[in-house]
């Protein structure tokens, strides 16, 4: 008779899973509220292992400091040239915008948060960051690294939030590909490289084209870098994202809004 209990629970789980009850508001709220307690408990339990792991990583990092220093020196030269280029381009854009009488209607603000939990290796790729309602973090805020957008806030707890990554199987982001402005939808594949679907004139897209957010849908601000095209099939485009999520320790949570007219 006692075997009926686990069998009953499995049947319940399958009905729950297939019935998609998981997406209800009540359960979403439950998830958001439980992030804090669940994460706090597991981080306390895993703290001895974390300490050992962090210690070993620190030794490895110290070993690499010299090499990194050399690399940064070389990059500094390249970056100074790129910086000049960026400044002149910004000035040009500002001039064109004033000529076209176009308004720069977006106001940015961001909060830097530390990644405290990295679960980016499974098909439901997510991160946990140490900012929550206490820091005015809200659902759907875009999240970026230093090189580009990596996802958006999906659940907000009191002091922790969950970031739904671009590679998450549930992630859908409207994007623009190439300078010609071809629109498409970036779909997470549960692994490293997401794909873009629903692109018209796919033949005009080339390997190496840049992919940015389109701003459609209102969640992501427009023209935020995501990645570049690395592969092409008949109806989908594979992209490689600029940000190496595994190497990130901090992220920027963007709070953008439309600028009010004076």
């Amino acid at each position, binding site marked *: *008779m*006692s*075997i009926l*209990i*686990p*069998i009953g*629970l*499995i049947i*319940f*789980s*399958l009905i*729950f*899973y297939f019935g998609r009850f*998981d997406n209800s508001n009540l*359960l979403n709220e439950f*998830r958001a509220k*439980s*992030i804090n307690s*669940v*994460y706090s*408990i*597991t*981080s306390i*339990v*895993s703290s001895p*292992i*974390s300490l050992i*792991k962090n210690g070993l990583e620190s030794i490895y990092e110290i070993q690499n400091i010299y090499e990194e220093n050399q690399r940064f020196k070389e990059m500094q030269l390249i970056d100074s040239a790129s910086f000049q280029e960026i400044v002149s381009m910004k000035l040009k854009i500002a001039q064109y915008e004033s000529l076209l009488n176009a308004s720069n209607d977006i106001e940015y603000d961001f909060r830097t948060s530390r990644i405290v*939990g*990295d*679960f*980016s*290796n*499974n*098909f*439901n790729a*997510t991160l946990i960051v140490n900012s929550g309602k206490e820091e005015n973090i809200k659902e759907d805020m875009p999240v970026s690294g230093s090189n580009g957008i990596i996802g958006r806030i*999906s*659940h907000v707890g009191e002091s922790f939030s*969950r970031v*739904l990554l671009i590679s998450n*199987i549930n992630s859908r982001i409207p994007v623009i590909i190439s300078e010609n402005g071809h629109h498409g939808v970036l779909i997470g*594949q*549960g*692994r490293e490289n997401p794909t873009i679907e629903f692109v018209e004139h796919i033949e005009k897209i080339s390997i190496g084209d840049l992919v940015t957010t389109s701003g459609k849908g209102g969640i992501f601000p427009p023209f935020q870098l995501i990645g570049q095209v690395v592969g092409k099939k008949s109806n989908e485009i594979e992209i490689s994202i600029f940000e190496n999520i*595994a190497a990130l320790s901090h992220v920027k949570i963007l709070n953008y809004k439309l600028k009010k007219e004076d």
Partner: protein
Amino acid sequence: MYLSFRGYLQLNGFLLFFISFNNVFNFDLIDFTLILSIFLYSIKWNKSEWLVPLFLFAWGIFQDILLGMNLCYSGSIFLFFYVLSQITSINGLFEQQKIKFIVFVTALLILFIFKNLLIYINYQLNYLSVSELAAFLIVVLLYPPLNSIIVYNQKKNEKIR
């Protein structure tokens, strides 16, 4: 295995400790849910045990919240291997290690196909990849040593009693 109050505490402590591994390690090739399933399958549970499935279900939900998975995903995997362990014990297959291994690999294969089928149906996505297959093989490779340790410990404890 019949569990005393202390046994229940130890089991829950072990489950919490193992689930917390997900917090520290983030490997493509190691699926901690499946490794935990090896333990759940290898342990010979008491036939009249009814509290353990409830604990497994609750810890499954706990893990799902931690990892951001759909609720009941991990719990159903844990319970699947728990039920399999009970069924093999009822049929007397539990003592025959080779058959037990074959049953485990078959169950893992069914789970693997089911998971990929589910992703394909829900998301029209072919999730099958080399790393996914490698993770599956690693669990198969880890089964014999982990099972031997558990079987040895259980026999040792039975002798002491």
